[in-house]
């Protein structure tokens, strides 16, 4: 389609941009092996000390666990509420329908700090009313709020490509609502749920701004990193190791999720 010269040019530019994305990651990996406490360049001496220290550090373990719990909770809530809203908007016409998608995207579109201080004052209010306390629950509350739109968008987009006749056919054959949902609807939106759920998990995992305002004294991984990274003597080396480990560990689920969405996408389009 494009001329040969254009293709070469675009390819080169694309590869350069891709390389740009990885520059800091290479630095992180290099410094995970840095033996001295100062982050100066070039690295004076190499060591595996930070790896063993990270392995034994209780604060790291607590932070990883807290982040895992928060991300899982937020993703589950986002999946439920996001798909519910998507179905409602897709199937029914009602007053305020357009406003729903606008309202759902607000938590992500508005600056994180605005969402953060709004939720913090709401939690304070809830504390006065019924004793709500800052903690893991409020972290999940905050994360779920901006994760809902990620699931919603994916499911709505997918639903638009699904035909209503399949559902009708299923009902004609005598299936009840749950059976129709489980055997007809769910498979067709599965890729959207996986894609939305993965995005929601990733966003919650790395979120710091809203979390700062809703966490109280719970430490999720980003909060731990923010404290540790400013401590050259004991924190920074750990941070580089943890960041590298998380990146490598996340490679597998992300890869499989992508394969899953690709496969079923191919299947889905032929069925209609």
């Amino acid at each position, binding site marked *: *389609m*494009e*001329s040969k010269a254009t293709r070469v040019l*675009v*390819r080169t530019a*694309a590869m350069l*941009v891709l390389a*740009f*994305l990885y*520059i*800091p*990651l290479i*630095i*992180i990996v290099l*410094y995970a092996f840095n033996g001295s406490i100062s982050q100066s*360049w*070039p690295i004076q001496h190499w060591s595996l000390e930070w790896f063993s220290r990270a392995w034994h550090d209780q604060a790291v373990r607590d932070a990883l666990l807290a982040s895992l719990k928060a991300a899982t909770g937020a993703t589950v809530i986002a999946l439920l*509420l996001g798909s519910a*809203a998507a179905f*409602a908007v897709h*199937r*029914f016409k*009602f007053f305020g329908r357009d406003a*729903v*998608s606008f*309202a*759902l*995207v*607000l938590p992500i*579109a*508005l*600056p994180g*700090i*605005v969402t953060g*201080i*709004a939720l913090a*004052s*709401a939690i304070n209010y809830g504390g006065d009313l019924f004793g709500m306390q800052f903690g893991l629950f409020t972290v999940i509350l905050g994360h779920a*709020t901006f994760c809902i739109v990620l699931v919603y968008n994916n499911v709505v*987009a997918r639903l638009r490509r699904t035909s209503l006749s399949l559902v009708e056919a299923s009902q004609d*054959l*005598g299936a*009840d*609502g749950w*059976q129709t949902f489980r055997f007809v609807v769910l498979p067709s939106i599965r890729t959207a749920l996986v894609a939305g759920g993965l995005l929601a998990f*990733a966003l919650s995992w*790395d979120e*710091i*701004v809203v979390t700062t305002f809703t966490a109280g004294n719970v430490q999720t991984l980003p909060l731990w*990193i923010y404290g540790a*990274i400013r401590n050259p003597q004991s924190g920074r080396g750990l*941070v580089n190791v943890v*960041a590298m480990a*998380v*990146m490598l560990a*996340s*490679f597998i689920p*992300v*890869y499989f999720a*992508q394969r899953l969405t690709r496969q079923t996408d191919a299947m889905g389009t032929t069925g209609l």
Partner: protein
Amino acid sequence: MHRLLGVDAEVDRDQGLTKRTEPRTPTRRLQLSAALHGRPRLKLALLLVPPIVWIGVIYLGSLTLLFASAFWRVDELSGTIVHDWGLQNFRTIWENEIYHTVAFRTIKFAAAVTVIDIMLAFPLAYYVARIARPKSRPVILLLIVMPLWSSYLVRAFAWRTILSHNGVLDWATSKLGLGAIGIGYSDTAVLIVFCYLWLPFVILPIYTALERIPSSLLEASQDLGAKNATTFRRVVLPLAKPGIVAGSIFSFALTLGDYIAPSLVGKTQFIGNIVKDNVGAANNAPFAAAYALIPVAIMAVYLTVARRMGAFEEL
């Protein structure tokens, strides 16, 4: 899997089907489904109430409360918020030049980061969407997304190591004979870091939009005699526009509210820093809310325009 209802006897023999002798009583689930079937509004309510309560009451409610507090003030002695409606916070913003400087600086940066990111993102998005072999596409997409899985803080801090005095960049340029550039802690550093951090968020919507363009359209354009450049300008670009706008929402909004990158690699203040400092250290939440109205108002306008351009489909 499917429980069949009673079938006509004639059809039975004809198709080799056996007829059930007694009618089944509908299961509970079937009764519930039947009950809901004729009442679409109930179904709607059940689906919609939980998300509405969540977003509507908790989020929008607290947002409204926040912006109401922009009109209140803090009592200087006790430090508590006084519900004294007035424009005192806005007057402070209007009268003090520092708040104008910071706001304009942040908006300028948001625009610059958006433009630069679109220019960087487009070649990569176009390459993956239309030039790369189908087998390598998922690999490259994976490579684009992977950096998002290593903490945003750590990547920003890595840039600090690169850009600081005698850091990696200075070392590299010295080796090349160019001497130390010395970006250090500065607005330039903040610009680079912002452009870097939001880049994947800009690439993905553009990719999605470009990928959806059917090749047949481009072939038709060629058949009608258009040169490559014209096809690009008049077919590809307009179809990619919603994706570009969607990507720009991310880079613009994220820059407008961020305070972490400026505090890690910068020296000057941005809107996010002013809001954070006032909410926390300065204990002046009403003023923070008033100042936060600036990026909120800007984004409200931006989102409305973006929606009209169809960007919401691409998010």
